[in-house]
């Protein structure tokens, strides 16, 4: 990326592009960053990926029709992430799914201060989550932690929505089974009082 001088010779962005970018892109920054963090599992890489996505989005903003900005941005991010991974690891050219394999564990990024309600239940959920395979953990992160819809998660991972649903449901079932193994399934269900 190149920084332009902000003085007289800087060709100003069109007012429409600036307005569209501020309307459609900036409000999605937090979701973009959370998603980037899930994809890269590294804060610095996540920031770089968001910046790359912002630049690509701005170049394309005048062709964007204004519908589903999040899905549009996540598709851009997915492509940017694949390109970044290919530059780092040319051997991954034929298997972009492997670009998502990272070693950092969820438990390492979540401190005990985050466990605010029913710590035994939460600790067991966290343990079970950490034991999930990367594919399963990733969909749980995207949907349950980052709040993406199934289709949005499918778009960013480049898999069918049925795959997201299958992985997500099986992942939660494993967490649920882990709770049952520790006697926390029925007893813990009631105190928290989550409502439908």
């Amino acid at each position, binding site marked *: 990326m190149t920084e332009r001088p902000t003085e007289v010779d800087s060709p100003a962005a069109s007012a429409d592009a600036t307005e569209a970018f501020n309307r459609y892109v900036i409000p999605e920054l937090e979701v973009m960053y959370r998603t980037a963090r899930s994809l890269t599992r590294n804060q610095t890489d996540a920031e770089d990926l968001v910046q790359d996505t912002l630049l690509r989005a701005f170049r394309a903003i005048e062709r964007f029709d204004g519908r589903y900005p999040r899905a549009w941005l996540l598709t851009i991010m997915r492509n940017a992430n694949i390109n970044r991974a290919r530059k780092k690891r040319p051997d991954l050219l034929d298997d972009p799914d492997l670009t998502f394999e990272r070693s950092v564990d969820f438990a390492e990024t979540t401190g005990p201060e985050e*466990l605010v309600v029913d710590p035994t239940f939460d600790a067991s959920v966290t343990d079970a*989550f950490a034991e999930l395979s990367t594919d399963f953990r990733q969909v749980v992160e995207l949907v349950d932690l980052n709040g993406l819809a199934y289709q949005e998660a499918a778009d960013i991972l480049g898999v069918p929505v049925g795959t997201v649903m299958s992985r997500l449901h099986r992942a939660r079932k494993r967490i649920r089974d882990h709770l049952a193994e520790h006697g926390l399934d029925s007893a813990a269900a009631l105190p928290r009082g989550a409502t439908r």
Partner: protein
Amino acid sequence: MKLFKKMRGGLSCDDVMEVLQSYLDGETDTETARKVASHLDECTDCDLESSVYQNIRVSLSTNKAPIDPVVLDSLRQFGERVSRGEID
């Protein structure tokens, strides 16, 4: 093995288990959501199972790793500079 299926809201317990997670995620159609809600109102077993999954979802979202506001602000400033054509 279940000897009989409880029918509530036009769905059996097995039917509800099939779609429960999608229902909790708001990913079912309106008619299915209505039937599931009706079943859960009348079926203690399925309602308890639903509560377990809801608590798992709440627990996971509670454990969401916090975002450093400085990082988010820095990205916002970067985005604003991009929008003004100062970085390309």
